[in-house]
C-alpha cells in the first residue's frame, strides 16, 4: 500500500521536452567561468584557479557574475558556453560592495569561431512571493550546467555578510533572497530564475553544512549595478560614516513614536557624520526631509542604500533626536572607500605589501594612513631574515616616510640594481622598531 502513491506519482503529468521557451533560452545563456587569479601569499606571487558561474545578459557578450568569482586580480578568464565551447572574457568592472562583477566575452574570437549564444532577461525580484518556485543554474563543484529547484524561502532576508570578498568589504545595501534550491560551491555567480527563465537573483552564498540555506542578490539591485558597471566600470557611493542599528523596542527608551527613526550604533571618526557632530545613541528621524523607519534590521539596507545613492559631495540634511531635543544638521557626503589598498610584491626582499588606506587606519586607530602593511614574507628572504612579519606596518625606509607604494618600489628598484643595507622603521601593534634589510 505504501508504494501506491509513488506508483501513481511517477505516472502523473504529461512528459515534456522542456519547461518553457524562456527557460530553454536561460539555459543557453548560463556559462561556467574559469578564473586564474594572481594572489600574493607569504611574500610571493601565486596563481590560483577557481570555478564559478555566470549569466549572459546581452548579445554583445556581457556576463554578470559574483565579484568573488572574478575581480581585478584575475589574470585569465575563460567561459564555457552552453554548447560547451570555451571562449576568453575580460573584466568590465566589479562592485565588491554588492559582490557583483561584469565580464565581456571576447567577441572577435567568438565571431571568428562562429560561436553563438543566447542572453537572459531580468525578472522583477520585488514581485517574488514566498513559496514561489525558483531554479538555480550553475556549476556546483565544477558540474557544468546543473539545475536545482527550490522555492523562495524568504524574499527579504537581512543578512550581515562578515566574509567580504577576498578582504574587500560587502555592504548592506540590499536585503537578500533566501532559497532552498541546492546551492554548492561553484554555483556562485549563476542565476536564480523563475519558471519562465527570468533572472530574479544572482546566487552568491550558502551555509555550508546546513540544509539548503542559499542566498541570492535580488535582480532589483543587480540591474542597477549592471548599468553603473557598463557606464564606468565601478559604482560610486556616498559615505557619511554611521553604523545603524534597528530601534526594535527601544522606541520607548528614546521616546520616539513606533515606526520612526533609525538608531546610530557607531560613528566613524573623521567621517562626515562625526564632523557634523553626530554621536552614537542619536536617532535619525529624517534624511533630506524623507522620514526614516528603521524599526527592524530588514529595513536598514534600503536606508543605507538611500544614503549611498546620493552623489558624492552633495549636502545631506539630517534631522535627529538626542535626549529630548530634535536637531537638524547638514553634512556633505564623502566617497565610500574600501579598507583594502593597492597591493604589490617585492621579489628582491620577498615581501608582500598593501598600502594602508584611510579606512584601515581608522579601524586600527592609527594616527594617519602613512605606511604600507606587510601581508606576507617569504622564508629565507631579506625581509624575513630581518624579522619583518605579517601585520607589521612599514612607516619609514632609510628615514623617509612611506607615503605611497611608489616610495617602496623606488627603493626596491635601487636595491635590486645595487644591494645595500636598507633601514626600515616598522610599527607592530603600537611598538616601533628599526630593522636593517641587507643582501
Amino acid at each position: 500500500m505504501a508504494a501506491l502513491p509513488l506508483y501513481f506519482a511517477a505516472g502523473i503529468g504529461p512528459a515534456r521536452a522542456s519547461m518553457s521557451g524562456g527557460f530553454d533560452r536561460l539555459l543557453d545563456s548560463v556559462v561556467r567561468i574559469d578564473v586564474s587569479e594572481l594572489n600574493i601569499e607569504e611574500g610571493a606571487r601565486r596563481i590560483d584557479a577557481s570555478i564559478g558561474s555566470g549569466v549572459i545578459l546581452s548579445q554583445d557578450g556581457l556576463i554578470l557574475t559574483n565579484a568573488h568569482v572574478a575581480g581585478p586580480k584575475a589574470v585569465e578568464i575563460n567561459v564555457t558556453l552552453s554548447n560547451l565551447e570555451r571562449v576568453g572574457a575580460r573584466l568590465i568592472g566589479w562592485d565588491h560592495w554588492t559582490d557583483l562583477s561584469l565580464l565581456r566575452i571576447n567577441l572577435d574570437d567568438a565571431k571568428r569561431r562562429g560561436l553563438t549564444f543566447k542572453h537572459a532577461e531580468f525578472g522583477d525580484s520585488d514581485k517574488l512571493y514566498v513559496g514561489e518556485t525558483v531554479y538555480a543554474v550553475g556549476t556546483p563543484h565544477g558540474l557544468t550546467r546543473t539545475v536545482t529547484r527550490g522555492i523562495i524561502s524568504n524574499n527579504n532576508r537581512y543578512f550581515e555578510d562578515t566574509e567580504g570578498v577576498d578582504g574587500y568589504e560587502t555592504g548592506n545595501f540590499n536585503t537578500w533572497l533566501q532559497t532552498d534550491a541546492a546551492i554548492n560551491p561553484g554555483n556562485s555567480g549563476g542565476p536564480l530564475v523563475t519558471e519562465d527563465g527570468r533572472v530574479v537573483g544572482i546566487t552568491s552564498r550558502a551555509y555550508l553544512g546546513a540544509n539548503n540555506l542559499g542566498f541570492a542578490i535580488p535582480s532589483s539591485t543587480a540591474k542597477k549595478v549592471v548599468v553603473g558597471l557598463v557606464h564606468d566600470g565601478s559604482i560610486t557611493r556616498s559615505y557619511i560614516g554611521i553604523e545603524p542599528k534597528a530601534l526594535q523596542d527601544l522606541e520607548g527608551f528614546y521616546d520616539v513614536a513606533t515606526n520612526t527613526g533609525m538608531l546610530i550604533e557607531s560613528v566613524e571618526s573623521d567621517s562626515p557624520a562625526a564632523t557634523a557632530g553626530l554621536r552614537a545613541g542619536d536617532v535619525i528621524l529624517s534624511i533630506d526631509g524623507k522620514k526614516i523607519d528603521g524599526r527592524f534590521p530588514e529595513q536598514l539596507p534600503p536606508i543605507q542604500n538611500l544614503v549611498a545613492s546620493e552623489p558624492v559631495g552633495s549636502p545631506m540634511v539630517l534631522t535627529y533626536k538626542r535626549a529630548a531635543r530634535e536637531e537638524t544638521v547638514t553634512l556633505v557626503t564623502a566617497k565610500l572607500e574600501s579598507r583594502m589598498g593597492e597591493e604589490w610584491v617585492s621579489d628582491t626582499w620577498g615581501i608582500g605589501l598593501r598600502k594602508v588606506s584611510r579606512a584601515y587606519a581608522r579601524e586600527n586607530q592609527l594616527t594617519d594612513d602613512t605606511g604600507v602593511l606587510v601581508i606576507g614574507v617569504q622564508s629565507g628572504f631579506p625581509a624575513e631574515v630581518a624579522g619583518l612579519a605579517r601585520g607589521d606596518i612599514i612607516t619609514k625606509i632609510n628615514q623617509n616616510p612611506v607615503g605611497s607604494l611608489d616610495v617602496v618600489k623606488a627603493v626596491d628598484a635601487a636595491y635590486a640594481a645595487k644591494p645595500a643595507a636598507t633601514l626600515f622603521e616598522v610599527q607592530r601593534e603600537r611598538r616601533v622598531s628599526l630593522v636593517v634589510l641587507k643582501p
Partner: protein
Amino acid sequence: MTRLALFLAAAACLTGSRARAADLPALWTDRVKCTVAVEYVTQTELERRPTIAYGTVVDSAGTIILPSASIDLRVSPKQMRDFKVYLPGDPEGSPADYLGRDAFTGWHFVRASPSILGRLVPVTAFVRPGPTREPELAALVWGIGLRNKDEDFTPYILQSHIALIQSLPQRTAIAQQEVSGPGLPVFDGDGYFVGIGASSFGQTFLEFSGSDRGGSPIMLVNLEESSAFLVSGEVLPYIGRVPHNAFGRPLAWLGAYGLEPMDREVAAFLKLQSQSGAVVSEVLEGSPAEKAGLKARDIILGVDGKPLPRFRPDRVVVDYVERLIAERVPGDTMTLSILRGSDRMELRTVLEDEPRMVREADRTYFERIGFTAREFVYGDAIARHARTDALTGVVAHLVKPNSPADLAGLRPDDWIKEIDGDEVQDFASAVEKLSAIEQDSHRTETVFLVSRGSDTAVLRIKLR
C-alpha cells in the same frame, strides 16, 4: 709540565668534591629551614582559585620573597586572600601577610606569622663572610626543591654544575640541570648561599608521534624546578626593599612607552658601532618624558652620561633601562642621551609617581546586571588612544556568563560611556546609578553606550 699541572688540578677537584659531598646531608638539614611554600587564594566574583608558590626567608622577622611570576599582575591585591606559609614537610600552614611587590626586583614580599619564626632561618645566615663573590664556571652548586601540597611540601635536593653566567640584565647562572625550585635558594659545595632559583627557561624537544614521524619541535618549561638562578650579588643588596604597601608605591615613572631594542645591524647603519640603544615607540601624554621633550621614535643611547651596555640577546637592553627607572623614586632626575634623526641631545627628566594602575582601580560587582564595573584609569585611556586629562566612563571588568549583560552583548574591556543616555562622569557616579538600577525592582531594562576599539555599540540590557 702542563699535563701534570692539569692532572693535579683535576685530582684536587675530585677530592674536593668528594669531601664536600660527604657534608651535604648536614648542610641540608639547616638550609631547608630558609625555604617555604606559600599558598594564597584569588577570589573573584565567580570563583576562588588557590595558587602555590615557593619562597625564601630573607630576615629574622620572617620576611619571605617570592619570584615575580608567582603572582599574576592582572590580579588586584584586594582579590588575593588567605595567604598561608607551609614549612617543608609540615602539612599545617600558618597565616601570613602579603606586603606587596617591589618594582625593581619584581619580588613579592610576604611575612610569616610570629608563631613560626622560631622554626625559620633566614638565608643571610649562610652568606660567605667577606665580599660577595660570583660563583665560578663549572662550580658545583646544589639547591632545594619542594614537592606538592599533597606530599606536605617535602623538601628534596637538586645538584648540578654551573654551565654559563649571563647578564639578562641581572647576572644569571645557568646550571647543567635543574638546581632548585623557582624562588628557592642555591648553595655552593661549602653550603654558602650563591643565588635564588629564577623562572626556568624553555627547552625545545622534538615530539614524534604515529602521524608525525618527522617530529615537530615543542617547547617544554619545567614549572617546578629551574636550572637558572640569580646570583647572590643580585639578591643580597635588595632583600631590604620591603614595599610600603601592596602596590609597591611610590613607583618611579618616565612615560616612554614600548621601548624596542636597537640591534647591532641598525647601530652599524646609524654609524653607532658598538653602541646599544632603545627606540621609544610612544611618549605618554602628561608624562615626565613628554615634559622633558622626549619624542616618539627617539633612540635612547645612554642614561646619566653612561652609554647603554650591549647585551646578548639585544632585547635585554629594554629590561636594563626599565630597571634603571624602577630603582629610583619619584622626584629623582634621569638624564637621557638620545638620538633624534641625526642629532644627539641630552634630556633631563624628573621622574614622577606612576598614575593609578589598573590593579589599583576600584571595582564593584552588580549581580542583577551581571558585570563588574571598574574605574577607568590612565592606562585604560592610553590603551584606547583616548585623552588622559578627562578620565570618564567605566570599564566592564568581568561579565558573568549568561547574565543579562552578557546576553545583551557586553564584553570584558568594553568602555561604558553612557548609562541610560547619561554620560558617565566618574566611577562613583556610575556605581550610584547602577546601584539604583539594580535596586529598582520595577526596572525592566537599562541601556549602555559602550566603546570597543574604533566602534561603539548601544546595548539594551533586559533585566530579569
